[in-house]
């Protein structure tokens, strides 16, 4: 019995150690953003100070609130991109799960291969092709590539197969509902839980993306937060006073996603292999 208790203590200790490792940088940025630029490099790492609001004011004042524009851009890219991608994935997943048609397995295999294509390798040819039609350095250059998610389609197909009974589709058809109406009023609500997961996956992927917007955008008023902070950090190399703005900006930038995580925790029970969501 005491052996078992000892093991359980070790398990708890290991878990807390892992938690401490993961929280350390977050804790640091929380403390560091309260320091003035002089204190950042001189006082003890984990000693808080009193300049948080000054730093926030400085950050907001940087080039007429450019930072907040980056945040708004990021919300736009991630929100619109994930919403469109979820709807498109749901439609494709539904077709692949619930219809028989010539070419079905070919389409599915192509999409599976797409899951394994390393996304950022596409960024440069995507840039060149969009440059040919004059769309680089616009919101569309970042939005359009985020609309397609092979993994989202793969997941949506599994959700549709698991959660939409064929009899209900037949019943809806006998009632005279068209396929699109059936999709909107019957299929989408039934797939809801799974689609939230697809949405969250894509939302986080777009929110965290760096290379695609870094390549596509030249105008810093279109930047998402990742590219903007990278630019600020590069300026810091010449003006160390910028570092407090970078640190405070880093803190503010992670608050929305962390809040989203904590509120939507139950949707993050993801089984990659089976594609299921245990909610």
């Amino acid at each position, binding site marked *: 019995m005491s052996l078992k208790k000892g093991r359980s203590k070790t398990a708890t200790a*290991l878990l807390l150690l*892992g938690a401490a490792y993961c929280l350390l940088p977050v804790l640091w940025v929380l403390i*560091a953003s309260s320091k003035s630029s002089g204190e950042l490099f001189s006082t003890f790492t984990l000693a808080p100070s009193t300049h948080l609001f000054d730093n926030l004011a400085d950050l907001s004042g940087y080039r007429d609130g450019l930072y907040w524009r980056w945040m708004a851009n990021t919300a736009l890219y991630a929100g619109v991109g994930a919403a469109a991608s979820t709807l498109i994935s749901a439609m494709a997943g539904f077709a692949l799960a619930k219809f028989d048609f010539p070419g079905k397995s070919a389409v599915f295999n192509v999409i599976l291969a797409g899951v394994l294509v390393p996304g950022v390798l*596409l960024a440069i040819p995507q840039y060149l092709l969009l440059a040919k039609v004059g769309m680089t350095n616009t919101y569309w250059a970042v939005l359009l590539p985020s609309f397609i998610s092979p993994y989202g389609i793969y997941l949506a197909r599994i959700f549709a197969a698991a959660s939409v009974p064929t009899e209900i589709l037949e019943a809806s058809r006998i009632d005279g509902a*068209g396929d699109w109406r059936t999709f909107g009023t019957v299929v989408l609500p039934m797939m809801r839980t799974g689609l939230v997961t697809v949405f969250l996956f894509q939302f986080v992927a777009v929110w965290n993306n760096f290379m695609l917007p870094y390549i596509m955008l030249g105008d810093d008023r279109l930047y998402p937060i990742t590219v903007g902070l990278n630019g600020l950090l590069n300026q810091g190399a010449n003006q160390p006073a910028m570092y407090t703005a970078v640190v405070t900006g880093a803190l503010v930038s992670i608050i929305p996603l962390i809040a989203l*995580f904590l509120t939507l925790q139950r949707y993050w029970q993801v089984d990659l292999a089976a594609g299921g969501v245990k909610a």
Partner: protein
Amino acid sequence: MTPSASTTARRPVGRRAGTPYAFLAPAMILFVAFLAAPIVYAAYLSLRKVKVSGLGLGAKSRTEIWAGLDNYARSLTDPDFLPSVGRIGLYGLIVVPTMLGLALLFALLLDANRTRESVGKFARISIFLPYAVPAVVGSLLWGFLYLPRVSPITDLFEAVGITAPELLSRDLTLWAVANIAVWGGTGFNMIVIYTALRAVPLSLYESARIDGASEVAIAWRIKIPIVTPSLIMTFVFSLIATLQVFAEPMTLRPLANTISTTWTPLMKVYRDAFTRNDLYAAAATSVIIALATFILSFGFLKLVGRRAFNQED
């Protein structure tokens, strides 16, 4: 627009042939435009080069011609390429096993603690939290923590009277970047594995315990085999992510002069394309990285017998 509005009420129960294609159309159009076309275009560019005639002045003196495999030869013999491949190989060998090993360990610990919710819940959320932090921000935070003037590690070493190691020195940079990837990726993989474990009814473990199996034996004989498909998937996704590491070293560059512009293969692609304006070399290198990724991930899936990616449910 509702395509079915005008059709007769006595439609046969079978669906009209066009419907699935209509549902698939947006996905397929975007797939072709943003996945297939860029791949084909990159492959095409990788076989082209610019021929300069005369003095290279005037619009007509520069023409694009077929280059055969010249660009590939150039890429493979570029003095910056092989070191970046070697670096990424070592980086992958550090990151993937460490990250998945920790993810599996934490998932098993959480699962063994299933009844003791409070500690488990706190640890689960904390370890998952870095997934909400973009790689750029994560690199930025760790980058500052690596600076000797900021780092608590330096304070720790000085407290016991040892000179602290330079975390962003030539020898340690690779480990510093690897740590950021492990920090950022462990939680997500842990959740994936933990979800697979939760699907197993507790009664299965109870009967194993009654048969006298120890917790470690249960983990090895029952739990790990159950999560093997999840481990395969997380391995493949981690492999793909490793080969395209870009944001972390790009963000650390202003803080560490040990990171060159060709530190990883993808950084070399970026430099060739945008600093040197040599799209052809960039395309050839992209194709090489894509092929390597495909060979590694498909080879691995073949090796394990495609137990992941179930075709039919």
